[in-house]
């Protein structure tokens, strides 16, 4: 029962179009997105689409998803599928909140990392040493992680001598970590805030987004953002990273060159768990632990890995997108309705591009779907919140359905490996 998380087509040798993007294309795309968002804001009047509040919330909400995703990236680059991220995230939230309340937020962060890493160690023990199917082990760790958190909650917060504000299923409030702001621009004179309030097309939108990303950023958020380039550096620019990725692509070849396959797999999965644990800390530091609060973010992190084609940059973009969808849904229903207009405009752009490439059928399809979205925007007052909640999941499914032939997971991802095997 070995379940490889990859499409059959991706193993063929035929040339595929690369998904890596050049900086100029990236800048052009970002500029286009900004113009579309500004247009939508002006037309629909939903200021929250580009407000600093929304972008700040999007960043905060993207952090746990992104950290779980980084965890998934580390594990899968070494060939271990980690469905157990959700369980490790839960362990991180519980231990982060418990240690954070009793010993201060920094100790909480360390405890969360340690708890997640322990979960990772368990996963490595099951999958690497005992050769258990990766998905089976991951599912069991999710069961166990949830169970341990529920049991310990009951133990720590269920009695009569419980700390004030806690209860059977939740912890007391944990102190926040200090947060920083960019001087002059986002605090002090707050030039960006000033610009944002003027409501100018494009300029105010850019200012709003930047101010949200640079103002009042918690240190744990900053740490998480820095871990993205750090992961890239370690995995793609060091000998250790090269060996780790070799283990995920072809463990037999790596072994024949003297690479310690088991040890690297262990290291990758333990780091994976530690990152997920830190993601848990990001949820509870400055807030509380609540039962069920992770809400499948571990799985969304895994989706971000696939969305980003097993690359840190793409993963961060995916996490940002999911965080933005969450933030909009939380902050303003008006803005979500505006998003329908945004999707309609985006599809028009796609249609124009396809028409220029002489793909008339695709262009017409895009126009039709775009028209449907515009009709939806024009006829409703609000989008039901229950439907907004699963936007990230729907996007993931669509991306997989459209692009799974062009995604390239590590070649030995999810396959069992025994030392001494020869194929």
């Amino acid at each position, binding site marked *: 029962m070995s379940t490889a998380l990859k499409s059959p087509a991706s193993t063929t040798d035929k040339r595929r179009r690369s998904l890596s993007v050049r900086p100029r294309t990236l800048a052009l795309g970002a500029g286009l997105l900004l113009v579309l968002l500004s247009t939508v804001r002006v037309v629909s009047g939903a200021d929250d689409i580009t407000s600093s509040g929304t972008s700040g919330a999007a960043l905060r909400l993207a952090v746990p998803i992104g950290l779980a995703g980084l965890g998934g990236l580390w594990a899968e680059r070494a060939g271990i599928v980690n469905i157990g991220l959700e369980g490790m995230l839960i362990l991180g939230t519980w231990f982060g909140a418990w240690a954070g309340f009793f010993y201060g937020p920094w100790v909480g962060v360390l405890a969360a990392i340690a708890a997640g890493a322990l979960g990772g160690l368990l996963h490595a023990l099951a999958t690497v040493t005992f*050769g*258990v*199917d990766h*998905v089976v082990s991951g*599912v069991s760790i999710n069961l*166990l992680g949830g*169970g341990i958190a529920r*049991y310990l909650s009951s133990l720590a917060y269920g009695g009569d001598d419980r700390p004030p504000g806690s209860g059977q299923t939740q912890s007391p409030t944990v102190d926040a970590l200090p947060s920083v702001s960019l001087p002059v621009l986002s605090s002090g004179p707050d030039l960006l805030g000033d610009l944002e309030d003027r409501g100018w097309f494009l300029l105010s939108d850019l200012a709003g987004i930047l101010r949200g990303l640079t103002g009042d950023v918690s240190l744990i958020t900053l740490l998480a953002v820095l871990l993205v380039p750090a992961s890239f550096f370690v995995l793609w620019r060091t000998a250790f990273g090269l060996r780790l990725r070799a283990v995920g692509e072809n463990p037999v070849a790596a072994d024949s060159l003297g690479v310690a396959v088991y040890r690297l797999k262990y290291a990758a999965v333990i780091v994976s768990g530690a990152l997920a644990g830190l993601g848990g800390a990001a949820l509870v530091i400055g807030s509380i632990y609540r039962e069920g609060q992770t809400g*499948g973010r571990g799985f969304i992190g895994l*989706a971000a890995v696939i969305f980003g084609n097993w690359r840190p940059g793409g993963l961060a973009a995916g996490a940002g997108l999911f965080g933005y969808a969450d933030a909009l849904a939380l902050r303003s229903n008006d803005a979500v309705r505006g998003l329908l207009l945004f999707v309609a405009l985006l599809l028009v752009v796609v249609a124009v591009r396809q028409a220029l490439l002489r793909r008339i059928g695709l262009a017409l399809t895009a126009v039709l779907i775009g028209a449907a979205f515009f009709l939806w925007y024009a006829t409703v007052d609000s989008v039901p919140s229950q439907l907004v909640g699963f936007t990230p999941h729907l996007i993931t499914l669509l991306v997989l359905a459209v692009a799974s032939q062009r995604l390239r997971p590590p070649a030995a991802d999810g396959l069992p490996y025994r030392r001494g095997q020869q194929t």
Partner: protein
Amino acid sequence: MSLLTPERAEPAPPPPAGPRVDLRRLALGIAAPLLAVVVALAVASVALLVSGSNPLTVYARMLEEGTTLRSALITVNNAVPLYLSGLAVALGFRMGLFNIGVEGQYQLAALLAAAAGAAVVLPGPLHLLLVVLVAMAVGAAWAGVAAVLKTTRGVSEVISTIMLNVIAGGIAAYLLSTYLQERVEGSNNSRTPKLEASAQFPNLDPLLRAVGIEPPQGTRLGGFVLVAVVVGVLYWLLVSRSRFGFDLRATGLSPSASVASGVDATRMTIVTMLLSGAIAGLVGLPQLVGSSYSYGLDFTSGLGFTGIGVALLGRGSPVGVAVGALLFAFLERSSATLQRIDVPTEIYVIMQGSIVLSVVVAYESVRRIGVAQAERAVRRAVDPASAS
């Protein structure tokens, strides 16, 4: 490991006779679950010691509480949906398919079956049959989405079913808050209208009394246990006694070999997912047609995820899955009153989780020992000189 691997010389073993090896493998097969239970008890004991209670006292208490007649009936009732959920997952396992989407499939199925059952009026058995068929159809359709994505677009069913779970939950919550909820003046209760008596499944209390067992006050034996038994028998016939089941197991053991021998892999994937989804559609029914008679926000959730654990315990055999479901239900029931001796009830979740993890490790280890033994036996048979 291959035949070329040098093997340490053993002191001239006699050529193994068939039955002897089989006996040893049988012992190994029994050792695995036993070992797993011991490890799980050890883990739970550590958790209990951390909480400052004596594990032995707690286990004695659980045994006492879990073996009363009342607890036995509740255990069976709770095991029924777990069994169905476990079978749905296990069917996919036999083919190497991972249906993590049972959770979403049964939630959506129960909601739509409740709505369909409340919308029509039919005579007795027909009404009930309609509810059951709607549930199975919805479950199959939702699993079918993952099957189509896998066969046409190459999307792993592990990821797609996880995403479909959340989407199903969102759609169910939306439908329940808009079109499908019962309109009651002045109240805002989010639940479907109650099913008429013609769509309610009779309980088995008369049967219990007939054999001389008087069910305790407020406890009933749900009739859906009969359906579960029937589904279990059908599952066994399908997997172990049919051409389809043979192809299914062959594909699970070696996809390339079965495709080479003429199995249509695409068709197998779609049919298996649809059947798995249809069984998943039944998971919510013991509650819907047996006790609550409507679908509301408080409808039991999580059965799909627990079912994965049950299926892993049962290793795809209908009897094994039944044992797993009863064990899980027993653990939950027997820890229900632990709060009175200051032990968190949630200890049963830790026990369930550690049992599943240690069981899969034990099974895998035993499988490897078995494979190593078989390889050694083959080597001796092929070239007796090298083994001595």
